[in-house]
């Protein structure tokens, strides 16, 4: 099969668009879509200047998504005086898994003029996920603890680095799965939160008015199917850690993933159309909830993070683990 752009040998076929692309045009196509997403989300505030640059913190795990995101952002913005990039890697304390992925992060950033910070649960909370998964004092899935700790570190350090935006490597499959899960669970409030937290263009979000205490997030890879992100990493020979977390237990997301890929095979373009419709719905419900009463946030008595109660969820979990 030949590339539809230049006639060279194709390396992939995108069934949803019908296009066959060679290596050069496939890489260019991924880069174009990411740059378009950055423009459409108005990621760069039009008041940003070289004298008053923005800082973007990238959540870099060493998996294919965050490695591709870091590589793409570095290629695009390393020379742009309006943007300062910081890569943040979190070590959760998972034997035989995280050490290898931190190595991948270091290998990637070694060749870049990029600030790269590694923060661990051990130094932050005096705990490691392997022992948390074993003691499990709250009778929850390991991902439920880990997600709270990860969000806490990402938000806190993003703030500490003076970040204007926090960027993560979520791809099209991740986002379509989340969208479908929110719809199937009937969780309209969560759909509104999804829009405000990471889907909406910055001018359309409440955080655009600087009223939000959290560093706003963005997902520049969210138009790229997961396989294409992985193919991009393979073709560019990027250092990627492929293993799955040994504590991964999101069974429901796995079911949704299978369902979506089955639909995609029979009806190419399903993931794109789900997201197109979902974003419109999410925008409408976000506006609805925006006018409703918002919860009052106050500072956590222990760590100062914004919370609706006296003590934030992270501090509750850390205490529960240490007293178990």
């Amino acid at each position, binding site marked *: 099969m030949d590339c539809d752009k230049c006639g060279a040998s*194709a390396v*992939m076929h995108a069934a949803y668009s019908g296009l066959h692309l060679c290596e050069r045009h496939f890489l260019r196509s991924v880069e174009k879509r990411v740059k378009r997403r950055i423009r459409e989300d108005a990621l760069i505030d039009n008041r940003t200047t070289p004298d008053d640059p923005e800082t973007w913190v990238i959540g870099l795990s060493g998996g*294919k998504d965050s490695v591709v995101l870091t590589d793409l952002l570095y290629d695009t913005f390393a020379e742009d005086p309006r943007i300062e990039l910081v890569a943040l890697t979190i070590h959760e304390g998972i034997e035989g898994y995280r050490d290898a992925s931190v190595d991948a992060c270091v290998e990637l950033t070694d060749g870049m003029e990029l600030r790269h910070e590694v923060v661990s649960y051990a130094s932050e909370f005096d705990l490691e996920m392997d022992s948390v998964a074993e003691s499990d004092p709250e009778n929850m899935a390991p991902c439920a603890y880990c997600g709270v700790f990860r969000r806490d570190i990402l938000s806190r350090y993003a703030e500490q680095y003076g970040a204007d935006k926090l960027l993560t490597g979520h791809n099209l499959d991740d986002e379509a799965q989340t969208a479908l899960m929110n719809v199937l669970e009937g969780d309209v409030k969560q759909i509104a939160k999804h829009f405000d937290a990471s889907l909406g263009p910055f001018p359309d979000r409440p955080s655009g008015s600087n009223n939000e205490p959290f560093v706003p997030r963005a997902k520049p890879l969210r138009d790229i199917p997961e396989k294409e992100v992985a*193919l991009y990493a*393979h073709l560019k020979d990027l250092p990627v850690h492929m293993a799955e977390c040994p504590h991964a237990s999101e069974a429901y997301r796995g079911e949704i993933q*299978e369902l979506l*890929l089955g639909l995609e095979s029979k009806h190419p373009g399903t993931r794109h159309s789900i997201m197109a419709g979902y974003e419109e719905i999410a925008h409408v419900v976000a506006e609805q909830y925006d006018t409703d009463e918002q919860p009052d946030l106050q500072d956590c008595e222990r760590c100062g993070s914004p919370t609706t109660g006296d003590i934030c969820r992270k501090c509750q979990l850390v205490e529960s683990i240490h007293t178990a």
Partner: protein
Amino acid sequence: MDCTAEVVGDTTHTIDVADGDTYGDLLTAVGLSTHEATVLVDDTPVPEDQPIETDHVRILRLIKGG
């Protein structure tokens, strides 16, 4: 024609392929989906709708699950 398909880091399969079968059919034959793996011919990825023209391929799993 027989085609050997080596799943990188895993097993090797010998598949009986018919005229017109595609690399996507080869993925299906080894139990993988076109959304999770790609076929490499001489170490270069090939589109899954391309007819099979070789008797040896490597299969690279790109994502988990699927």
